[in-house]
């Protein structure tokens, strides 16, 4: 092994494939942010694998010069789990869309999260089915008019952060396609985390849901709706920090208050590492379908052994003395264990 430090650049992570998203698609910004982030990991390209499902977002692996698999709709977390469990040496990433991860693949998402498999799941949420040309998705707002819901959807959407928390996720975060710096900070925290990380990335679909997140991006509105979570800091927002997050007088929830009208000590100090999921859950419920009070950043980051390491431990315990035996010796040992008899 050579000990030369890796000096990769964003360019090293570009594949030779022509990128084929619509002009203005938020996926470009995410791709470029990830290509520029990857060198920071210091991991050789061959140790990195991206597995995706199906959707516009899931074309992602083709554009990254790492190992990659563009699989089938919704199943990437399952495929990535098998890869990560059998190859704990790899850095395994999943790229998925809101339909891919929360509709057809919902089952795999929640089970990967509860097991805490060491995979980093990036869910590009454009609140629409992009690739199939504009049907409502499980994150589309109630009443949304789409191709499949011409007079408004009757479905209540998922709150992806709350779903992940309910699934025992040990790392849950949200970020936005256009904010490279923030995206990088969240990716950095996710990469450093042991076990599953779930990252919701708000992504603009320029064709079928254009401007869905403009309120969070427009300099005129963003400060009043974007709640930037920072570990150890009081949660305030607004152009001059005029809004803050405090406990609800009734129940166990959180609510938004005027910073001026509450004692400083009552403002919630963000703590990603609160052991129970209730705090992060209530944070996730601050925002509504209209994106008012939308927290971005890391909601939850708690230490829990990664699934693979638990599996490895059991395997190692069972394999005492195995190193000295040939595979044929081992097979003979297995076949002759238990009830046998001999005919002469």
């Amino acid at each position: 092994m050579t000990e030369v430090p890796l000096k990769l650049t964003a360019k090293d992570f570009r594949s030779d494939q022509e990128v084929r998203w619509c002009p203005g698609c938020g996926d470009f910004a995410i791709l470029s942010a990830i290509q520029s982030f990857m060198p920071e990991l210091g991991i050789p390209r061959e140790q990195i694998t991206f597995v995706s499902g199906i959707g516009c977002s899931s074309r992602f692996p083709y554009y990254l010069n790492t190992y990659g698999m563009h699989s089938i709709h919704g199943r990437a977390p399952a495929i990535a789990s098998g890869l990560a469990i059998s190859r704990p040496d790899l850095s395994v990433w999943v790229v998925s869309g809101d339909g891919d991860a929360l509709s057809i693949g919902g089952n795999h998402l929640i089970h990967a999260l509860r097991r805490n498999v060491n995979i980093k799941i990036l869910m590009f949420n454009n609140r629409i089915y992009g690739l199939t040309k504009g049907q409502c998705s499980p994150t589309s707002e109630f009443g949304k008019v789409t191709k499949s819901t011409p007079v408004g959807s009757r479905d209540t959407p998922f709150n992806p952060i709350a779903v992940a928390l309910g699934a025992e996720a040990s790392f849950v975060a949200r970020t936005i396609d256009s904010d490279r710096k923030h995206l990088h900070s969240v990716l950095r925290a996710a990469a450093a985390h042991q076990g599953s990380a779930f990252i919701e990335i708000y992504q603009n679909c320029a064709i079928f849901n254009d401007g869905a997140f403009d309120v969070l991006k427009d300099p005129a509105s963003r400060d009043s709706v974007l709640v930037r979570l920072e570990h150890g800091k009081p949660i305030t927002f607004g152009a001059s920090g005029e809004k803050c997050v405090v406990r609800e007088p009734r129940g166990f929830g959180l609510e938004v208050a005027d910073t001026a009208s509450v004692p400083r000590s009552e403002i919630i100090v963000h703590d990603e590492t609160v052991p129970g999921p209730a705090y992060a859950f209530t944070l996730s419920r601050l925002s509504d379908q209209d994106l008012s009070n939308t927290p971005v950043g890391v909601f939850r980051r708690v230490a829990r052994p990664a699934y693979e390491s638990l599996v490895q431990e059991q395997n190692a315990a069972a394999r005492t003395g195995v190193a000295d035996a040939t595979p044929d010796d081992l097979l003979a040992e297995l076949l002759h264990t238990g009830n046998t008899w001999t005919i002469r």
Partner: protein
Amino acid sequence: MAKQIQHLDRVAIRFAGDSGDGMQLTGDRFASETAILGNDLSTLPNYPAEIRAPSGSLHGVSSFQVHFAAHDVLTPGDSPDVLVAMNPAALRANLADLPPNAEIIVNTDEFTPRNLEKVGYTSNPLENDSLDGFIVHRVPLTSATIAALADFEVSKKDAERAKNMFALGLLSWMYSRPTEGTVEFLRQKFAKKPKIAAANVAAFQAGWNYGETTEDFAVRYEVKPANLEPGTYRSVNGNSALAYGLVAAGLRAHLPVFLGAYPITPASEILHELSGYKRYGVTTFQAEDEIAAVGSALGASYGGALGVTSTSGPGLALKTETLGLAVMLELPLVIVDVQRAGPSTGLPTKTEQSDLNIALFGRHGEAPLAVIAARSPADCFYAALEAARIALTYRMPVILLSDGYLANGSEPWLLPDPADLPDLRVEFATEPNGPDGKFLPYLHDPHTLARPWAVPGTPGLEHRVGGLEKADGTGAVSYVPADHDLMMRLRAARVEAIDVPDLEVEDPTGDARVLVLGWGSTYGPVGAACRKLRERGVAIAQAHLRHISPLPRNVGTVLAGYDRVVIPEMNLGQLAHVIRDRYLVDAVSYNKVNGQPFTSAELETVLEEVVRND
């Protein structure tokens, strides 16, 4: 009193009782004694579908059949020559299967008005003429056991529970079985409860003595050892043989085995067994559903493991989309389908061969893959190795078909020397294979048509794979019509390129005009039927398929050599369909779909009819 000794060539015994009577254990012990004596044998359990059926009820009857002989045994026996009935339900549920003059050993203590009523007997069959034509031994099994254990420090309930050992002792005496193994087994099983151990051993011996001293049992039987190949044996059922085979495949390939599975009858035992074989390089993953099970296995294969998934019909249906992806990715994958009677939930505990169609054709688009089938419980071991060989050598998904009959049936298995098993080692790609140092992930080997297996972690070979159509060689996504056309034909050619041994025909006299062609678990009953026909001078040829996709190259020639081809299947003619289509042979399809395996007697009749009408 001197007992008469009678020699027999073969015997089938069925132990039947309530689920709580320990019939599986009793039968299993009898089978072990028989194996040690050197008879060849085959066994088949039959459990109720319910986990805890009401005691004494008809659907709570559990049974275990042992067929043993002085020659090689092909099936667990059509109909038992001896029935041990621990209660009225066991008698009623099994009586119809008995041939005339069969011996019945009944536990008279259980024939109480209440128990008789539970199973709809309006009068006691032991007291009317309904058992005329059978040889009935009336034994008070329960009370005799309790009496034998009077001096033992066990509760009455524990004494009563030892009645299965009394029955085993009696049968062991009747068939002159060695007893040391059972005594040792009981001592070990109840090592922590020496009093219970002693009581069970005493009950076992009391049963033996009962035979020796009671006038009712005037005859003792002997079945001489079979001429078995020398060596070390163990008893295996199909599921455990399959699990051993998968472990063997991993070890012979020097690869870790990754099993992704979701529980389903009758395949779950493969997951259970493999989960205990971590020591031998196996990792098991109980997935959230069958889609994740096959997905995780494919992910593991992508990473360089031998990915395996095991299931039954409903689970195979869920896996189909991922199998299409596996066909596109050209990666090794073994899919085990332990078939059960379908469609839908069907009869989960009953056997059938009705998944051949889904195995061959059950994917969207044209997604050809390899399909093979196991023929006997011990053969599941070799079938698993063969599935792995094809998957690893040709980089493709292989469906291995077993079924409930094989999964649960067991037979003695001569343990192989690992060094004699196929060498399954493969080479991962380590270097670029294209011009100017490029890596071409879809450059196919001219002989095997396999593409390089370049696993993540290999520097310089970073590449992307996926379900979208691609260009040959580069593997780059391609919508070019000619590329799709080429790849469609290439995927079909890849299956045909698999090297498969020729189909062998068994026709001892060489003058048969009728060929019986089978696949899978019908091997035993078809073989037994052919043997009986030949004993009576009827010429018949038998051939049995291991490989169904691709079919052996000589199948057409073999079929052309006979006037008539009969295809017996536990489905409504799925292989027959393939054979007719492929070789334009007007095969006779004989079908059984009642959840039961063929009996050799019914096949004997059917085959004889075809031969006579030929």
